């Protein structure tokens, strides 16, 4: 049990055998007694003794109370103190051990009384006050941890051990905060923890001590520390070349956020007095003089002289000081906007946030000029008038501001000392009069500077029609002007962040209050809110242009803000004019035009499209996260080599441009829909509700099933049946209860299927089902080897998968074409495809009815048949239905067709055009894909009616589609001739089963009335196997051929909706 060295005997004799015992502690005590002076020779012994003491004490705390009694009785802590106070004997070495022992002691002690005893004499405070060698990393670590451990023991009872009311001593706190700017981050974190733990204790007299004796110096230093940090950050931004200081900047930003969160945590403790002091310091030493001040344009040299002159004249003061004031540190407006955003995102302390917002929104020179009282009054007025529900007691804020506003200009005084590198450790003690003078001085200076510069800007902006004779709200103007993104959106993004942060500040500021301030703020006859909305619309319009230099994130925030600020107030009309709404919609249309250029220009357009949609849905706008990203402080860039996320930079290359176009369109579409109160009905392209899910039980009677063995990478084998649906690849296993039904064990999208043959085994396919979305570099959903019974089945499966994939994709491409209202372009690539597949039938429809919704897709076959004459489409439809009725079509199918009937009128409007388009389209068709398709098409058409006489091989790959064309032809020839239709379709269909899968023949043969006509082509097949015939008998005689081609999509839906009757493509 005890593997201690004591077994082997140490250099010292007579120690008890049991390491963990009272006896051993007594023995160790004797060592301490004998070695009161630390020397080279006894150092090791002392260290080991101190270490053992820790062990025994904790053991005693857990097992034997006598141990602790002995420790206290002998007052062993005093020995500790004695040892550490000795200069000699290699202080670090012994001190580290002492501190470790103390840490172990206070961390592991569980017994309350033991703790009280340990704290009861003043030794612990003396130890804290001891000046250790803090240059030693380990000493520093153990020391600060010791303080932290003690701070965690603080409560209303134990506070008296640490804070001495009479002597005003509180070493735990005062010693700790001395390290607030220690270079080691872990030490700084510990200091913050300690201070927060101290503030948390509800002890009035202690808090009074904190406020009166320490708050001003600590907070002013803290604020100064933060301010210096910000200047460093600003330098980093200013001097950055090509994003090279990215890492450094990112750390500086993270560090600053730490500071802000720390301040916020203090404010959240809600200690009124403390918060007042902190608010005052933050506002008047940092936020207003550095952040807000930096929003005003830097003074141009000529006016500098002017200002200096004026000030000198007005104030009768030494000109030199004023020049120094002119040199107040300032940060770039980029950094200023960013930092202000962070304040509003992180801090929720109402008085602070309100005051700051007020200054930004309403602050002007007259207020500065007339002094602090004006700000206060206006602020108070606004609070009472605008936020009726705001019931907080205002005293604290007013008190705070009363004291504080007077200091407004103090920064200038401090700045002087700051410039000379002297840290102000306490609030400056300027008299009220001088304070006021300084206020006036600064106000005058700011105004003069602003006017001159603003006027210059105005002159430069020839486009601007408004002549601002007076600049009432310079800060708000700066914020709004920053929204201009004619060149780029560098400043605009940060300005948007600030507006967003101000309007979304969680509880510190009420949204309505912000809005009303905005709408009440007038510039001439022109409310700031209108100006803001116009700026936003401007950004949105810009973003929809093809060569836009606006990042996606900017667009997104702009749209979000547009929604926020145009949200109708209860009894009012929406705050958006028809013109403004028109701008938004034309921006959407413009983005659609841009997007059309990318349609099909990239092979992976469909994948991009779907992926962008998913990304948009997934990524909720989170400005707080955005503002943690220091990259937005650097000029916008396009290259992904910076590691900046796609939405936060400009697109690079054609694929990204396509992505951007897609995303801008989605964003605008979504916003427009919100304005119209519409629900999205066309996106996403795949309606998840209609999909087959794993474990669904499906009726597979009359479906094409290909038996196969799935061999996974791990060589696990599973016997499955492969079913290919319109959109999905499904692997089923037979259902145990229902004959002919199967349970889906795997489902994957056909569009993501990749099929490869096996060189060595003709019965084998390598099938990979990728996960949707191109940006995710994840493992495929399925990657396995499929073994089929013979090579014919293997070929069949391959064909179906390949075709299923392209069909699924075509179908979705068509949906996209509808969505972005592709006009004349559509038929040229797609027309030749028409008639070769059911989905092409759909695409052809797009010529006529781009406004057909995707959800109606399943019904296209029906409409198709009626498309020879627009006027009679309805009649045709009815005929179709009756036809289908004869073929035992289920009622549900015809029901589903009816939506098409509804849209047929709009269809017919375009039919004239469509007919024309169709006529010329073959010549228009270009590209290898479409030409090959057109060849197929012509083959299909040519062979259509004759297919039963022609060689069965010819239409092999297209066998399923031919009936459509045939069918159409026959309908064109004689719409009422049922027999023609009946004859045409099964005959061509018969190719399908013959080559693809003989189970399919079941359905062919089951259509007994037409069997004779198909005999010719199927002479071979009819002999093929008796199993087919048997199968036919087993299966219920169903609407076989109808379901397998005409109602292809229809049945898919049918199955999904109701009985899960699986139909193959």
């Amino acid at each position, binding site marked *: *049990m*005890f*593997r*201690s*060295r004591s077994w082997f005997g140490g250099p010292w004799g007579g120690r008890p055998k049991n390491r*963990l015992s009272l006896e051993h502690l007594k023995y160790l005590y004797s060592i301490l007694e004998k070695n009161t002076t630390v020397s080279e020779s006894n150092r090791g012994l002392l*260290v*080991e003794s101190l*270490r053992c003491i*820790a*062990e025994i004490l*904790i*053991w005693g705390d*857990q*097992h034997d109370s006598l141990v602790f009694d002995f420790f206290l009785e002998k007052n062993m802590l005093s020995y500790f103190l004695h040892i550490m106070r000795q200069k000699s004997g290699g202080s*670090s*070495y*012994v001190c*580290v*051990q002492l501190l*470790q022992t103390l*840490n*172990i002691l206070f*961390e*592991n002690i569980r017994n309350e009384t033991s703790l009280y005893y340990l704290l009861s004499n003043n030794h612990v405070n003396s130890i804290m006050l001891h000046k250790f060698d803090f240059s*030693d*990393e*380990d000493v520093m*670590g*153990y020391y600060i*941890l010791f303080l*932290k*451990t003690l701070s*965690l023991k603080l409560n209303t009872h134990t506070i008296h051990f640490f804070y001495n009311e009479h002597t005003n001593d509180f070493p735990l706190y005062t010693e700790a905060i001395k390290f607030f700017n220690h270079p080691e*981050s*872990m030490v*700084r*974190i510990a200091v*913050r*923890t300690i201070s*927060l733990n101290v503030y948390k204790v509800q002890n009035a007299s202690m808090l009074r001590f904190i406020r009166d004796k320490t708050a001003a110096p600590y907070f002013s230093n803290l604020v100064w520390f933060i301010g210096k940090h910000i200047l460093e950050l600003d330098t980093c931004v200013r001097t950055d070349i090509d994003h090279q200081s990215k*890492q*450094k900047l990112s*750390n500086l930003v*993270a*560090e600053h*956020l*730490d500071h802000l*969160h*720390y301040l*916020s*945590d203090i404010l959240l403790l809600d200690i009124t007095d403390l918060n007042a002091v902190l608010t005052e310091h933050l506002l008047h030493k940092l936020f207003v003089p550095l952040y807000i001040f930096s929003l005003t344009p830097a003074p141009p040299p000529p006016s500098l002289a002017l200002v200096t002159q004026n000030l000198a004249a007005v104030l009768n003061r030494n000109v030199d000081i004023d020049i120094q004031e002119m040199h107040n540190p300032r940060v770039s407006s980029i950094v200023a906007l960013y930092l202000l955003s962070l304040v509003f995102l992180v801090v929720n302390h109402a008085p602070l946030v309100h005051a700051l917002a007020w200054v930004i929104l309403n602050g002007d020179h007259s207020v500065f000029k007339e002094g602090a009282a004006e700000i206060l009054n206006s602020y108070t007025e606004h609070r009472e008038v605008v936020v009726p529900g705001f019931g907080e007691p205002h005293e604290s804020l007013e008190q705070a501001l009363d004291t504080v506003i007077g200091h407004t200009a103090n920064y200038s005084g401090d700045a002087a000392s700051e410039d000379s590198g002297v840290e102000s450790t306490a609030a400056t003690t300027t008299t009220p009069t001088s304070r006021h003078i300084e206020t006036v001085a600064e106000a005058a200076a700011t105004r003069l500077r602003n006017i001159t510069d603003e006027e210059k800007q105005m002159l430069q902006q020839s486009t601007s029609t408004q002549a601002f004779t007076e600049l009432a709200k310079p800060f708000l103007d700066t914020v709004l002007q920053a929204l201009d993104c004619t060149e780029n959106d560098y400043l605009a993004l940060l300005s948007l962040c600030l507006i967003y942060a101000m309007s979304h500040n969680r509880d510190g500021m009420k949204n309505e209050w912000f809005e009303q301030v905005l709408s009440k703020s007038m510039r001439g006859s022109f409310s700031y809110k209108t100006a803001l909305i116009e700026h936003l619309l401007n950004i949105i319009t810009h973003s929809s242009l093809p060569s836009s230099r606006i990042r996606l994130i900017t667009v997104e925030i702009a749209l979000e803000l547009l929604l926020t600020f145009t949200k109708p107030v209860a009894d009012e009309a929406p705050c958006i004019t028809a013109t403004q709404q028109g701008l938004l919609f034309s921006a959407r249309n413009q983005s659609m035009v841009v997007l059309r250029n990318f349609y099909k220009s990239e092979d992976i357009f469909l994948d991009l499209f779907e992926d962008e949609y998913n990304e948009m849905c997934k990524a909720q706008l989170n400005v707080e996260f955005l503002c943690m990203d220091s990259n937005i402080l650097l000029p916008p860039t396009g290259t992904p080599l910076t590691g900046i996320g796609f939405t936060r930079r400009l697109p690079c290359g054609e694929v990204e441009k396509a992505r951007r176009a897609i995303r801008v369109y989605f964003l605008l579409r979504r916003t427009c829909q919100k304005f119209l109160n519409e629900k999205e009905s066309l996106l996403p392209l795949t309606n998840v509700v209609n999909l087959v899910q794993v474990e669904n039980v499906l009726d597979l009677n009359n479906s094409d099933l290909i038996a196969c063995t799935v061999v996974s990478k791990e060589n696990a084998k599973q016997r499955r049946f492969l079913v290919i649906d319109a959109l999905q690849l499904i692997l089923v296993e037979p259902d145990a209860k229902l004959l002919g039904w199967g349970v889906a064990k795997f489902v994957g999208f056909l569009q993501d299927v990749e099929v490869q043959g096996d060189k060595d085994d003709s019965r084998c396919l390598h099938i990979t089902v990728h996960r949707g979305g191109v940006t995710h570099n994840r493992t495929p959903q399925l990657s396995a080897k499929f073994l089929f019974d013979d090579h014919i089945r293997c070929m069949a499966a391959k064909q179906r998968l390949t075709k299923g994939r392209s069909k699924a994709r075509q179908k979705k491409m068509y949906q996209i074409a509808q969505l972005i209202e592709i006009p004349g372009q559509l038929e040229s690539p797609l027309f030749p495809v028409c008639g070769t597949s059911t989905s092409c039938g759909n695409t052809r429809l797009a010529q006529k009815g781009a406004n057909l919704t995707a959800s109606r897709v399943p019904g296209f076959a029906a409409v198709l048949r009626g498309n020879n004459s627009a006027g009679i489409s309805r009649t045709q439809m009815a005929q179709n239905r009756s036809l289908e009725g004869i073929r035992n079509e289920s009622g549900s199918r015809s029901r589903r067709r009816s939506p098409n009937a509804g849209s047929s009128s709009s269809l017919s409007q375009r039919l004239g055009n469509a007919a024309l388009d169709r006529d010329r389209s073959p010549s228009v068709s270009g590209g290898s894909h479409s030409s090959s398709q057109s060849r197929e098409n012509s083959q299909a058409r040519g062979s259509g009616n004759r297919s039963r006489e022609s060689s069965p091989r010819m239409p092999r790959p297209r066998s399923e589609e031919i009936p459509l064309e045939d069918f159409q032809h026959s309908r064109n020839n004689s719409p009422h001739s049922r027999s023609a239709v009946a004859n045409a379709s099964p005959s061509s269909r018969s190719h399908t089963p013959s080559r693809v899968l003989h189970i399919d023949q079941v359905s062919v043969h089951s259509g007994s009335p037409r069997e004779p006509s198909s005999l010719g082509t199927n002479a071979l097949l009819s002999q093929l196997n008796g199993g087919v015939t048997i199968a036919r008998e087993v299966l219920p005689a169903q609407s076989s051929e109808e379901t397998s081609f005409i109602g292809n999509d229809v049945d898919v839906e049918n199955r999904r909706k109701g009985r899960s009757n699986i139909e193959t493509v």
Partner: protein
Amino acid sequence: MSYAYLFKYIIIGDTGVGKSCLLLQFTDKRFQPVHDLTIGVEFGARMITIDGKQIKLQIWDTAGQEAFRSITRSYYRGAAGALLVYDITRRETFNHLTTWLEDARQHSNSNMVIMLIGNKSDLDSRREVKKEEGEAFAREHGLVFMETSARTAANVEEAFINTAKEIYEKIQEGVFDINNEANGIKIGQQATPTNPALPGSGGAGGAVNSGCC
């Protein structure tokens, strides 16, 4: 004591999973694991040798600092490695791993090496979390996994040293910016890459003597 690098570690996980015991077990071998003594410390340092280089591991257990947002967010940054610890005899500590990991990933620098540790492997009879579950979780989230026992010292060395090795490899690959102390890596004052480190492992001070008895 000179070192080539200093790596800062943090230990995270629910209270009572034995974080500080692990830490003490690793940093100070003089504290022998004893059955009837639960003892831990929240700070420690120890010298190890990797690839012939002296590397100082400085470990901060920040228990009790979870109450404030500012503290949690800042404390993940500035660490090069993190030990994410759960207790194999308490399922809830395993269930909370996702939260811990999310926090860590959100606030830490992306290169931070995280090791998942199932502690108290000596209490196999009271086990609630299978080793396979820990392995699966680690695999899923790209962590290194190990079961340890602070009480028997099993795998404790390995846990800390393997993490250090991974950080060291990342430095060699140039992934870590070692000139940026905010990453939790410090270059030693005297040590230079050409200077072979001193043989054997010495303690950085009395308390961090890593030598075995």
